[in-house]
C-alpha cells in the first residue's frame, strides 16, 4: 500500500526550514528517504528502522514514529542543492520491496 506524503510541493528561500511527512496505514519495518534531482536516479538519504528512532546528517534529519506509522524528514537552513523531489519508501517486513510515496517537490530559491 502506497504511503502518503505531504506536502506535494514546497518552495523555500535559502536558509528556511521544511518538513516532509510520510504516513502508512500498515505496520512498518523501516522507512527510507530518497532525493531525486531532475534527470537523475534517486539517491538514498537515510533509513529508519522500527524502534522509533531519529537520524540525521548535516542539516537533514528524520524521525520515525512506529506507533503512528509515520516518518518526517526535516531540512534545516536549506541550501540550493536541496532542490529536488523527495520520496519516502516503506517496507513492511524487511524482506519486502519498497513502496514509494508520490513524492514531494522541493524548490529552494535564492
Amino acid at each position, binding site marked *: 500500500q*502506497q504511503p502518503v506524503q505531504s506536502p506535494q510541493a514546497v518552495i523555500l528561500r535559502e536558509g528556511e526550514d521544511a518538513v516532509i511527512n510520510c504516513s502508512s496505514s500498515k505496520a512498518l*519495518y*523501516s522507512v*527510507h528517504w*530518497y532525493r531525486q534531482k531532475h534527470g*537523475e*536516479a*534517486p*539517491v*538514498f*538519504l*537515510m*533509513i529508519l*528502522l522500527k524502534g522509533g528512532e531519529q537520524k540525521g546528517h548535516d542539516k537533514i534529519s528524520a524521525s520515525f514514529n512506529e506507533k503512528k506509522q509515520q516518518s518526517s524528514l526535516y531540512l534545516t537552513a536549506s541550501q540550493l542543492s536541496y532542490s529536488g523531489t523527495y*520520496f519516502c*519508501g516503506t*517496507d513492511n517486513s*524487511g*524482506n519486502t*520491496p*519498497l*513502496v*514509494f*510515496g*508520490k*513524492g514531494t517537490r522541493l524548490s529552494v530559491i535564492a
Partner: protein
Amino acid sequence: SAVISQKPSRDICQRGTSLTIQCQVDSQVTMMFWYRQQPGQSLTLIATANQGSEATYESGFVIDKFPISRPNLTFSTLTVSNLSPEDSSIYLCSVRQGASYGYTFGSGTRLTVV
C-alpha cells in the same frame, strides 16, 4: 554501497519491438528490483528478481510483457516486449544489500516508443 551500471541510458523503439535493459552490479547482491517511473511520477515496482528463482511480479505486470533474467548475483536484464507508446517511461534497476541498507539505483533507461 554497490555501484550499478545500467544500459542503455535511453532508446527510441518502434511499436511492436522489444527492448532489453541490462544492469551490472559491482558486488554480489541477493535482491534486485526493477521499477518504472513515468515522468514526474513516483516509482512503481515491476518485479523482484532473485538469483536462482523466478522473478516475482507485482499486480499489473506479467512475465510475458516484462521477462526478467537473473543468471547470477551481479547481473539482471529486463525486457519490455511488444512495445506500445504506453510503455514510454524510465526504467530503473535497484539493489539492496541487506534489510538495514538503503537501495542503490542504476542511472535509468529512458524508453520512448514511437
